[in-house]
């Protein structure tokens, strides 16, 4: 039996363990973020000089720009197109890998390959894959003798869908990889029981698996939803937001204001609108997890 707590003998210095992490995040994340947020209420520029408070002026100016509406609409559309496929696809792949078979651990890491390709490289890669001369899409079209035609990325009807497909390709296997440990933790007997009772596979998943991995599923969902609304690097290369503003996203809009147009206040204000959206998603996630765990 423990009679003397170690804390009674020594003063508790263990909170110092939080020091390095706190310092790193404070200096290189929190402080710059606070500076950025503060700047959205001023007309300051990176060059320095005199600045004034402009209140919500930057936000008003951003919201008055029709591209912003398009950017947020695209982000939400991208989410609605990509996330359901990623979740269902991720669960499907995880289900396939549930039972052991020779080479399963290799398959498991091979699945990560699309996510390992950097978003920039994925953009370059799919730019060529969508090409009708050298690309995969042209090759498939060749089978149906439908060849020719331009890249779907340049077609305003298909551009956003093509971008969403790249997202689905990158994130679905990652979702499967993250969901698999949860699926594996469901005891085999529960599957057997459901099979004996003759329930179809989909029902088994709904009744046996999903209730057990709810929090994991919510967390993966948070990752996928946030990833889809903040999509940036891959679109920068694939379409640059075009044609027109058919594939512009809030992050891309903010980036082009900041980097290309050197309009720091507006660009930062636009990016903080996106942070607001991610925070709403985050708060919803935390509330849902609380409901599930209490």
């Amino acid at each position: 039996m423990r009679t003397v707590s170690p804390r009674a003998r020594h003063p508790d210095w263990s909170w110092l363990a939080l020091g390095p992490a706190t310092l790193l995040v404070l200096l290189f994340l929190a402080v710059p973020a606070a500076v950025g947020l503060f700047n959205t209420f001023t007309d300051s520029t990176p060059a320095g000089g005199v600045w004034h408070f402009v209140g919500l002026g930057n936000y008003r100016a951003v919201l008055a720009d029709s591209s912003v509406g398009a950017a947020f609409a695209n982000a939400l559309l991208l989410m609605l197109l990509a996330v359901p496929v990623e979740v269902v696809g991720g669960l499907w792949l995880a289900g396939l890998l549930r039972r052991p078979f020779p080479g399963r651990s290799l398959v498991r890491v091979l699945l990560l390959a699309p996510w390992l390709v950097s978003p920039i490289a994925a953009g370059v890669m799919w730019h060529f894959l969508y090409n009708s001369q050298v690309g995969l899409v042209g090759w498939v079209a060749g089978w149906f003798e439908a060849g020719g035609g331009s890249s779907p990325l340049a077609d305003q009807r298909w551009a956003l869908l093509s971008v969403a497909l790249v997202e689905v390709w990158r994130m679905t296997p990652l979702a499967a990889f993250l969901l698999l440990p949860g699926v594996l933790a469901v005891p085999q007997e529960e599957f057997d029981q459901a099979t004996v009772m003759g329930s179809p596979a989909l029902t088994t998943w709904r009744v046996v698996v999903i209730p057990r991995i709810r929090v994991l599923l919510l967390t993966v969902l948070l990752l996928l939803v946030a990833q889809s609304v903040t999509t940036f690097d891959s679109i920068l290369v694939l379409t640059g937001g075009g044609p027109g503003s058919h594939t512009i996203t809030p992050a891309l809009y903010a980036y082009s204001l900041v980097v290309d147009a050197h309009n720091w206040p507006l660009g930062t204000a636009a990016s903080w609108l996106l942070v607001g959206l991610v925070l709403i998603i985050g708060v919803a996630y935390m509330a849902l997890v609380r409901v599930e765990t209490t």
Partner: protein
Amino acid sequence: MNSRWKSVKRGLGIGIGLGLCLLPLLWTLLAALGLQPIGVKLEGTATLDNFAQVTTFEPAFLTEFVYTLAVSVAATLLTITAAFPAAYRLAHTRSARADGLMQGMLVLAVSPLIAYGLPLANVEGAIGLRGTFIGLVLASAAAQLPLALWLLRGYLVRIPHSLDEAAHLDGASWLTVLWRVVLPVATGGVVATAVLVFVLDWNLYLLPSLLTEHPPTVLPVAMRDFFAFERDLEWPVAAAALLVTLAPAFLLVLAAQRALEKLVFVPQELSG
């Protein structure tokens, strides 16, 4: 018979799933080798010329490769070194507040970098770090820290408290316990977290693009600049470059297979 049909179906499913994931990469590999599928045939003769061509198109490619590797390794080590003790300390606090803090970390981890990238460049400029190797390493390390903290704490809460409590009672210092008792049993989780953090660092674009002022730059930035300003890029050479930039992450993940299998994305205390 029913079960045989089931395993055939599963095998088919795995084939299709793996095929969908890997077909684009296989296509890239064929192109890099100078082969183009036309119908069911492959045209061209296999060659490694395209890999050699990469440095003709981008003379600084090797420098950029080494620089990216150095930044990513240093940033990963820094992230893990800072996150591990903090995660251990937070794993001991199992209150609603600590859980809330961790979920906040996760939300932070999925927030857009663009919101603080430019102010960060200014802050680094003010303290003389902008455009330096150290500045980029510190910025990358901080950007991945929230995720590392989330993953490591999720792993550490599973380790029985009695283990390190006993060491503490024997009079071992906190740091000794961390290094000698906790780290050895948590190696798998630390390795898995480090691998994921390395991949994210290796692929980072936005922060390096805002924090780099002169060469060398990191591969994603170089690749985007090249793609944006030299449109005459040929697909076979681009394909070769893509595969070379994928190689370190891919080899690392293959090597860390066992550890990655044990990765816990959500701690058990939350999933029950």
